Structure formats: structure tokens, C-alpha cells
């Protein structure tokens, strides 16, 4: 059903060269969970990579009906905390698992790919391990109203939303923090991870003062007077708010009124979001995400300027980044992490969503966990490593190779995914290559388009089948899946 086909107004993906194929592939490779014939076709239809990017930066304009229909099977993934608490038993992980699976489904099937990549980026920047027991009822609302609401908005609004998000307040212990003995966990991470960074020159006194500012930001629950209507929602406790002058870096506030703690916290959070150190950190992180593991400082400086000039708006920074010479020159400089790798393989193989709403993606999410990158699952507040060095273990490499074969072979056929029934036709089209060399060339063109493949690699793939020459009996049968897997295992394909 997803066999590439000519639509009345859509040129086939083989016509991509007309819109500068290398640039289009590079942009798609970095801004999506893997280019597909369909996404390349979209670029062609829009006339240029820039036009495609504009569209991706306005995700609401992209029709995503098909993906939305799949998401309907995880109703708790975007539910309010009271709704979650009413729907499942206390402490159940069901809602968090639904968030994980909905996230995975969007990566696989949403057309708003850059939006999903940015949601992943911010979910890691403001990491709340999911699942983890403290946030069993509150993570869905955080995902919806913090991350998804502000992923392409301003960082200031994102951080403000995060600082009053029950999930964050529970995850980093602020929900139990009161003025007599402030819990410094959240304030430390707010400075170190979420904003200015550990080298910004703040002191332990700044951390204590930030913790004082945040006191009173708590969460209703069934033991502190909460009702079914408000459990898991924000509770401001003026009786827990520290009162008295506070200073954090260059920001000061008299903080004289216990009832106004939320306003004081907002003022501090806005200040931190606009610090130049925060601009540098966000710019550097985006550059590490999209350009290279060690991005040029000149680029980071320019992006930081755009960030500050735009009032912390994200989209102008992304436009500057994707339009930069540094980005254009960075082809091949990022490696796919396990999540990006496996999702991109699934997309390349045309795996689609099952229509049965009872099916879930638990198996694939579990496999990603075994590979070290369960969606949203990083166990510490700092988010998954975004550089190659974090992902070099032998078990992980082997696991990826084995998972590739499992996906090519359709070994998950009981899950939420539907595999191509006729993989040779899906990947090669209706005609069949005459020779083994032609078969290998066709698969390389399809699965690692534009990559430089040394002659010896081509020869090795042919030799896997046997001597070059006419196709053998098993080449499109029992040897086809391992051959496709080998192409997917190539180092040229591990680049993002």
C-alpha cells in the first residue's frame, strides 16, 4: 500500500536531482527520522528544500490525519493528570507507556517530522525519565502542554511551562520543597542543565536562592487535600513559600509576599532563559544535534545572537542553523543513535501502522531500551548523549545489526506494525535487475542514496550472493533479507 507510485501532481522521487538532491537528502537526513521516497517527493513537489523546511517549521499546516488516527489508540498519552488518575490505578505505568508508544508512533509515521525531532530534543533538554514512578499520572500533560506546546515557540515560554509542570516538580523533588528546608534538586538542574550551565559562574548560594524562589510550587495529591478534580495538577502553597530578598546571578527580587511566589519564580525563570550563557548552551546543543559533535564556535555564537535577538524564539535559530554554511558542510558528520537508526530503518522498509487499535508498540519500545535508547527513557535529568562517543558499545552495535535483520524479516508481525508483503517489489519496483551487480546497485541507490560507496563494498555485497552475473535463485528469496540487512548495516548508512 505504500509502494512508491506516481501521483497526478507529484513527480517520482527519482526526479529529486532537479532540486539539488544532495542538499535535500542532507536536510531530510538531519530533520527527520529518516528520508523516505515520500518525503523526497514532498521536497520535489515544493520546489526546494527551503520551501519544505518552511512547511516543517509550521507543522499545523501539515495534514497529519493518518498519524492522528493511529495515535487515537493511546488516549492517556495526552490526558490531564486527573483524567489519568481516574482511568488507571494509583502508580500504574500505563499512561507513561502510552506516552512512550505515542512518541514512537509519531517518529515513525507523523509527517511533521522536524516537529517530532524538536520534541525529542526538548524532551531530552528538560528530561523527565519516562517511565519513572513519580510522574505516573503527570508525564502525559507535560508532554502535551510543555514540550509539544512550545517545541517551536520560545524557549522562555517552554521553560516557564516546565517550571510549573507537575511532572517536573515531582521528578526533581520541588513538589516537597518548602521554605524551611528548600530542596535544591530542581534549582540545581534548572541552572546547570536547563539554562546557564555548570560553567556560568553561579555559586551554591545562587542554587539555594533559586530553590527558595521555587518553594511553594507543588502538586495536589490524594494525601494533601487534593480532590479527583485536581490530583496531579499544580498547587501553589503560599505556606511553603520562602519569603525574603533573593538574588540569583544578576537577578534580584524582594520576594516579600508569600502569596506572590509564582510571580517571583516566573521573573527568575524569564531572566535565566534570556541569559547569554543560556543562549550559548541552547545554541551549542542545537548545533550538536543538527551539525556535528563538535560544532564550530562561530556558528554557535551566531545562533546565540539570533536566539537573544528573537526573544528566545526557536524557529529563527533553526532557520539560521539550517541555512548556515556550517550545516551545508557537515554532511556525514553526525551518526545515528539507536533510536534514529531503528526508526529510520522501519521508515526505509515502508513499515506502516496496523489498523487494529488494540495493537501496541511495546515490543519495539522494549527493543530500543535494550539498545540503550528507549523513547523518553534516559534515567538521569540530563537527557541522552547526543554524540557518537555515547553509543559505541559492542552490545549496542550487535543489537542494531540484529534488530535490522528482525525488521527486514518482519519478525514483529504481531505488533502494531504492518510489514511490506513483497519487500523486493517495494524496494526495487516492478522490474527486476538482471544481474547481481545491478541488484546491489539498486539497493544502494534506494537505501543509501547519494552515499559514496567504494568499489570494494559493492564487490563485498555481490560476493555475499556469489559470483557476479545473472541473479541466482535465492537472491530475491532467502538471501534477499540478509542482503538488505547488510546494506542497512553499512557505515555509510549509520551517518545521519
Amino acid at each position: 500500500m505504500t509502494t512508491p507510485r506516481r501521483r497526478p501532481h507529484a513527480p517520482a522521487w527519482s526526479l529529486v536531482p532537479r532540486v539539488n538532491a544532495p542538499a535535500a537528502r542532507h536536510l531530510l537526513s538531519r530533520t527527520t527520522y529518516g528520508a523516505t521516497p515520500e518525503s523526497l517527493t514532498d521536497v520535489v513537489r515544493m520546489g526546494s528544500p527551503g520551501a519544505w523546511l518552511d512547511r516543517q517549521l509550521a507543522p499545523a499546516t501539515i495534514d497529519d490525519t493518518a498519524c492522528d488516527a493511529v495515535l487515537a489508540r493511546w488516549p492517556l498519552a495526552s490526558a490531564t493528570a486527573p483524567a489519568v488518575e481516574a482511568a488507571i490505578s494509583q502508580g500504574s505505568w500505563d499512561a507513561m507507556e502510552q506516552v512512550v508508544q505515542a512518541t514512537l508512533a509519531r517518529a515513525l509515521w507523523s509527517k511533521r517530522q522536524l516537529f517530532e525531532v524538536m520534541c525529542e530534543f526538548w524532551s531530552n533538554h528538560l528530561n523527565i525519565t519516562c517511565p519513572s514512578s513519580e510522574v505516573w499520572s503527570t508525564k502525559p500533560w507535560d508532554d502535551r502542554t510543555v514540550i509539544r506546546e512550545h517545541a517551536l515557540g520560545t524557549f522562555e515560554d517552554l521553560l516557564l511551562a516546565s517550571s510549573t509542570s507537575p511532572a517536573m516538580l515531582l521528578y526533581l523533588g520541588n513538589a516537597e520543597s518548602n521554605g524551611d528546608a528548600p530542596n535544591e534538586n530542581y534549582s540545581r538542574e534548572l541552572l546547570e542543565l536547563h539554562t546557564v550551565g555548570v560553567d556560568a559562574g553561579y555559586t551554591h548560594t545562587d542554587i539555594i536562592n533559586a530553590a527558595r524562589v521555587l518553594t511553594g510550587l507543588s502538586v495536589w495529591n490524594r494525601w494533601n487535600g487534593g480532590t479527583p478534580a485536581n490530583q496531579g495538577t499544580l498547587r501553589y502553597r503560599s505556606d511553603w513559600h520562602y519569603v525574603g530578598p533573593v538574588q540569583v546571578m544578576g537577578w534580584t527580587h524582594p520576594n516579600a509576599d508569600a502569596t506572590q511566589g509564582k510571580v517571583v519564580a516566573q521573573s527568575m525563570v524569564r531572566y535565566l532563559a534570556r541569559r547569554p550563557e543560556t543562549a550559548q548552551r541552547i545554541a551549542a546543543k542545537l548545533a550538536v544535534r543538527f551539525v556535528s559533535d563538535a560544532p564550530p564556535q562561530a556558528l554557535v555564537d551566531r545562533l546565540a545572537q539570533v536566539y537573544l535577538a528573537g526573544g528566545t524564539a526557536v524557529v529563527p535559530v533553526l532557520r539560521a542553523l539550517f541555512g548556515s554554511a556550517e550545516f551545508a558542510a557537515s554532511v556525514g558528520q553526525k551518526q545515528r543513535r539507536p533510536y534514529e537508526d531503528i526508526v529510520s530503518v522501519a521508515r526505509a522498509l515502508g513499515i506502516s501502522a496496523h489498523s487494529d487499535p488494540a495493537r501496541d508498540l511495546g515490543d519495539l519500545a522494549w527493543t530500543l531500551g535494550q539498545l540503550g535508547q528507549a523513547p523518553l527513557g534516559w534515567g538521569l535529568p540530563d537527557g541522552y548523549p547526543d554524540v557518537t562517543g555515547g553509543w559505541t558499545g559492542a552490545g549496542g552495535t550487535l543489537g542494531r545489526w540484529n534488530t535490522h535483520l528482525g525488521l527486514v524479516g518482519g519478525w514483529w508481525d504481531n505488533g502494531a506494525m504492518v510489514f511490506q508483503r513483497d519487500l523486493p517489489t517495494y524496494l526495487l519496483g516492478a522490474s527486476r535487475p538482471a544481474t547481481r551487480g545491478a541488484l546491489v546497485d539498486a539497493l544502494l541507490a534506494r537505501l543509501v542514496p547519494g552515499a559514496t560507496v567504494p568499489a570494494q563494498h559493492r564487490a563485498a555485497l555481490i560476493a555475499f550472493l556469489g559470483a557476479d552475473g545473472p541473479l541466482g535463485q535465492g537472491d530475491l528469496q532467502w538471501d534477499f533479507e540478509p542482503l538488505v540487512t547488510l546494506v542497512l548495516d553499512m557505515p555509510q548508512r549509520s551517518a545521519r
Partner: protein
Amino acid sequence: MTVSRRCFLQGLGVAAGAVAASPLLSVRASYAATATPYTGPVLVVLSLRGGFDGLSVVAPVGDPDYAVARPTIAIPASRALPTGDRRFGLHPALAPLKPLWDGGQMAAVHAVGTPDLSRSHFQATEELERAAPGTSLRTGWLDRVVGVAGSGTPFQAVQLGDTAPSGLLAGPEAVLAAGSLDAFSLSGSSWLGPRFATTLRALHQGVTSPAVAPATITLDALETVAALVAADRTPKNGAVYPTGGLGDAMADVARLVRGAAGLQAVSVDFGDWDMHTDLGAAGDGKMLTHLGEVAQSLAAFAQDLGSLFANVTVVTLSEFGRRVEENGSGGVDHGHGNVLLALGGGLNGGQVHGTWPGLAADKLDDGDLAGTTDYRNVLVELLVKRQGLSPSAAAGVFPGLSPAAVGLFR
């Protein structure tokens, strides 16, 4: 140790700290060590996740408050295995390990605590494995050990049982994670034969890519494991492991030690200690079964290794101990102070080390056994006396700690 990471990175022209995250490459410059049989020390960290009830394992039978606090689940002095110390007796399920205790190849430290007083499994585990309270470090302590003392082989740090990364080994050092040695194999090889791996190797030659080094290590490790598994299919010295994940993992550790592939640190998980209900008395319940599996697995491991066991140190860690008082469900809730078990060579064995704070109400820490020995002090002593780290290098693994002697290791 081959080349320090800092030197290696400088050699690549990469400035350490150029990015916010960890250094870019953890792959060691030299794998020559794989060719040389490794016969040095091996550290086995057995993570008993869920909150191990140390008061049932090395039971304070001589403390009058013990039986009072636990009217239905205390181990009676008459049923406990004698330790040579009238204050303590071992749970009867530890009978398979009694010969090691008596032979000086097993000891315990009681009332071990952590600086973190969280009773949350998640937070306490994170802090236990990070072992750097009050700092910004995001690595696991075992990763830092490998960072300063790693052999440079793909087998220097191994994680068995679960391939999802353990917090202990979180960080820049390469870890070989496998469900089991037998499962560490290339899917497809069974019906495709060697041509699958041969092609994979060819595809990772003659090209410059960050993917090449990990792939090469993986292909080498596959060959090493295959050879090791083929040469060493059965336990030695008549050892019989119990059925189950822990026995399987320990049998694999024994094979890796015997295979001299360079194993220095291995992380093994054995969870399910969260016994809020039906912990059981000496003769029944969850503790008897679960602790019995630990005892049988470790006893078989020692027997399997024979004289090589002297090169090994097994140490148990758990995120917290449990409440002194039993609850209304025949179990115990989350607590603090705990017991730490150590097995292998180099021990001041057959003893219960540490400072026993007592179980009287005024000695408890918020209802829990107080922690009187910081677990990091046990680990520093282990790293110095057993793993060959200098005192400063060992202390450096645990920032902010001023090490104090425990006396567990000779």
C-alpha cells in the same frame, strides 16, 4: 592501561570538553591486549535491586531488639548459621556459602549506608551508582574505575543479563552488554554461515567513519566469544549452577574469567528484593527462595573457578536496606542501612565488619538501621587492595569522599 583518554583525544585534535556531553570517543587506541591472556583482578558487582533486606541475610540475632521488631519474620538464633560472631547469624538459605565463609573467602560489612537518604528506588539507585553526591558527574562509578584502570580490551567492562545500560557503567567507557554469552551472536549467522560476518567486516574496511571502530570491536568480540563458548561449554570442578538468570550470568562470568579475554569489571543484576509482603521466616517465604538462588549461584561460581576465584572479588550492592520493623503484611518497607557481602580472594574473611549501631529505638535513623560505614569506603578499599588502583586514583573515583579504612580487604 594503554593510552589515557585525554592523550587519545588530544592526538585526534579534539579538545576535551568541546561539547557539553561526554568525550567524543571512548574506543581505545589499542586492542593489542586481546592477544595477551589477561590474568589480573576481576571485579564482579552484583546489583541486588529493589532494596535487599540485610537484616534477614546477616541477621543480628544477638541484638535483643531484632526479634521484638520482627515478631514473625526474624531469623531465630537457633536457625541462623553461625558466623563466629555471636552478634550475627547467616540466613539458612546461605548454607551453600558457609564453606566459603569458614574458609575466609567470604565476609560481610554491616550497617553500610549511602549519603543519599532517599527511600525512592529510582533516586536511591541513581545515587548509589553515580556515587558522586553533590557533584555534577553523570557517570557511574564503575565506568570511572574502567576509565582510570581499563585494560583497553573490548571485554574490560561487561554487563550481563540485561543489555539496557546500567547506571553503574553509564559514561564514556565502552561496555560490552549482552543478555548472555550464548546470546551474543549475530542473527542470521546460524543459517547463513560465516559469509554474513565476513561481508559485514568487508563493509567496515576501506572507509573512514565513526562507525568503523565500534563495528570492528563488535566483530572481534563476536569471534572471541564464539571461540570462548566453543572451548568452554560446561562448568568445571563439578560446579552446578541453579536454574535461572543469576546462575546463567555467573556461569558466563566464570567463562570470561577463564577465557582471560581481559575482563576487569562486570555488572550483574539480580533484582526483585522489594519484599513488602511475605518475606518469610527462616524456613519459608520469598527471601528463602531468592536468597537461596544467590547462594547457590555464587557457590557454584566459586567452585567453577577453583583457584582462579582468588583473582575475583564479588561485591553486592543495593539501593537501600529495609525498615527494622516488619509491616502488617509479613514484609518490610523501604529503609536505609544494609549489609554488603563480599566474596573472593584477599578478604579478611569469615567476619562481619563495620560498626553495629544497634536496633534500639534511639539508635535508629528515622526508624531504619543507621548507616555507619559509607559504602564508598568499602569500594575505595577494594579498588586499592584488589584492583591495583593507587589510593589517590581510587579516591578520585568518588569525589568529595575522604576515605576511611574498613578492614574488609587484606
